């Protein structure tokens, strides 16, 4: 038996050393040629952004012959999951994209993210170009951990032609909004307002804005914090009732389609109103829809929140704590005015670098959106990034079942309160 064990251990050891030595060789090979490899991870495997970043990587590698950039990308939800797994071990990519607020905060809590204050302070010319207000979502304990790049906001997009035909005005209040929806329905639109509720995040965007309008900001500030959250304010029930009322205008379809399908329905003129991000303006334009405008979520009568705030948050870049200094150079390159200008020109999405958005690289509609974002009285982060994910999940799933009339706002809030209590422990 001893002999057996000895052989077993030897084989195991051999196998292990074989694995590790091969990995070691690779490292050696790269250092022989004095090439620094940077792992770059982003969440845009789709066009036009994939090609844009591939092109930028090529440019950077040409300008810096000693650097090789390995790029990897996966879409949205998979990105969220993958980055969580990566951050739990030392395989975190050197530079990667991140959402702001709680998403970034969670990553930062791993202790594996680089603090950027010194880097930003050292190169004030570059750092000063980034719109200061957009750093908020990446700042935790007064330290900056990310550089914002894209800016975004959410608003109702409406089909101007449909509004004109039915003599409709852009609604200023929630009551007016409902009246507009009723009129559109009477005019023959099956779904005057469209949304793909299979995407949980789309629901969370609605809820975040509605709560922001209805509930006192002091209350949400307290509730959105895991340590103090209670969710006992009656405003939440009112908010869910409002959400339910809106889903009634979305037709039977809404629970079976995704947001992309909803966007297509708007772009094809089938649905006259949709709640979308400014990041989507170009997608709608590319599909041939040109005559549309937007309005912020209307003021809700009797609401205690800020009726002028805009829901939206930037996305940005983060660095791993162990990233080489070349990754910092790459970060500066990605957020330079030149790259940012090209980016908005190619992709259509607005960016957080000053001077990189003007009429030369964007459409009038997007420029209007850009001013809305940069001039908003305040920005509210996406709801699923503002509250604990367990709470957000109850609201999002609850939103789906609410649309199906399988539950009531009261039941959802009971669940939320129980979860808030559990999380506080």
């Amino acid at each position, binding site marked *: 038996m001893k002999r057996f064990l000895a052989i077993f251990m030897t084989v195991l050891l051999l196998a292990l050393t074989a694995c590790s030595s091969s990995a070691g060789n690779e490292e050696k090979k790269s250092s022989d040629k004095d090439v620094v490899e940077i792992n770059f991870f982003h969440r845009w495997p789709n066009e036009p952004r994939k090609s844009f970043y591939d092109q930028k990587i090529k440019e950077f590698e040409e300008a810096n012959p000693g650097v090789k950039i390995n790029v990897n990308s996966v879409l949205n939800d998979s990105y969220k999951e993958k980055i969580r797994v990566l951050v739990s071990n030392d395989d975190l990519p050197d530079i990667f994209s991140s959402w702001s607020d709680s998403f970034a905060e969670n990553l930062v809590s791993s202790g594996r993210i680089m603090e950027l204050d010194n880097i930003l302070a050292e190169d004030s010319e570059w750092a000063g170009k980034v719109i200061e207000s957009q750093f908020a979502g990446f700042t935790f304990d007064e330290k900056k951990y990310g550089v914002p790049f894209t800016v975004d906001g959410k608003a109702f997009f409406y089909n101007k032609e449909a509004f004109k035909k039915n003599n409709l005005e852009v609604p200023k209040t929630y009551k007016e909004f409902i009246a507009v929806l009723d009129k559109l329905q009477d005019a023959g639109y099956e779904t005057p307002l469209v949304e793909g*509720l299979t995407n*949980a995040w789309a629901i969370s965007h609605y809820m975040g804005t509605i709560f922001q309008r209805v509930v006192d900001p002091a209350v949400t500030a307290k509730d959105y914090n895991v340590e103090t959250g209670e969710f006992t304010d009656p405003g939440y029930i009112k908010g869910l009732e409002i959400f339910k009322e809106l889903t009634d205008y979305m037709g039977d379809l809404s629970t079976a389609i995704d947001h992309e399908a909803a966007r297509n329905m708007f772009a094809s003129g089938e649905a006259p109103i949709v709640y979308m991000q400014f990041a989507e303006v170009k997608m709608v334009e590319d599909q041939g829809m040109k005559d549309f405008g937007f309005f912020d979520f209307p003021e809700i009568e009797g609401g205690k929140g800020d009726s002028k705030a805009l829901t939206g948050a930037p996305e940005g870049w983060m660095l791993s704590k162990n990233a080489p200094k070349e990754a910092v150079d790459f970060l500066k390159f990605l957020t330079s005015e030149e790259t940012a200008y090209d980016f908005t020109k190619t992709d259509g999405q607005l960016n957080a670098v000053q001077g990189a958005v003007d009429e030369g690289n964007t459409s009038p509609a997007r420029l209007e959106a850009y001013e809305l974002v940069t001039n908003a009285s305040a920005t509210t982060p996406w709801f699923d990034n503002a509250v604990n*994910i367990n709470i957000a999940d109850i609201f999002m799933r609850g939103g789906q079942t609410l649309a199906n009339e399988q539950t009531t706002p009261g039941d959802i809030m009971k669940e939320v309160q129980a979860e808030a209590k559990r999380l506080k422990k």
Partner: protein
Amino acid sequence: MQRRKFNIIPVLFLLPSIALLLVFVYIPLIQNFYNSFFDFSVFSQTKTFVGLENFKNLLADKVVSVALLNNVKYAIISVILQVGIALVLAYILEDKLFHRVAPFLRVVYFMPVMISISVVALLFGFVYNPQMGLLNSFLELIGLENLKEVWLGNPETAIYSVIAMSQWHSIGFVTLLFIVAIQKIPKELYEAADIDGAGKIRKFFSITVPQVREAIFVNTLITITGSMLVFNEPYILTNGGPGFSSTVMSVHMYQTGFVKDNMGYASTLAIIIFLLTAVLALIQIKLSRTGKDD
């Protein structure tokens, strides 16, 4: 009698697979048991010991009962269709009447098995599309408009739509296993039955079914454990929604761990899935006394 000397050679041959099994199956399994007593997040490097807290949460978790029920629905429907219908299908395909078209039909039934489940799920996403999907268009075509449904968006139909897709995907595989088993039955049995004047149905129940008992057992086992472990289909097609209506245990576990970041509780859910499949396998082995002759 001389004691046989311990021979090292066969053990050496087994070593690689033992090592791999240990590293990828048994050690993670033990780790998972260990993890279920802790509360921890992928982001933090510290674990808090919570004892049986996670198991207590399990009893209060409403999603677990929904998910378990969905797994049971999955199992029942899959056994009826994949084992029951597949056996009948295999019997028909092996019938003399179908000798000419059997190879073609076999390919038709087996084709879906070859397609990756992710692709199948995306495909069925289109089939179930309420607006322009194949299913609703078909219902309209044959004049059954009132049966049109928001298949994946309605909590009543979501899970059944997912299950239906799985059946389409896997029935060919089970059929194929049955065909192999039926081909092994000695022809003399059927010839003797023919002489006795037995009909096709009588032959099916008196010869085919008892002769392929072993295959029925294996297929039932595969199907039931498969239904307990099912993940891809509901995850890709509905993500467990709307609400939790089409959530199954493994989707719940995955979301708890990787979306909601409760790793400890996810480990507890994994234990439940493990125990369920283990118990089922034991019951099956016990009941069918496989491997032993009567």
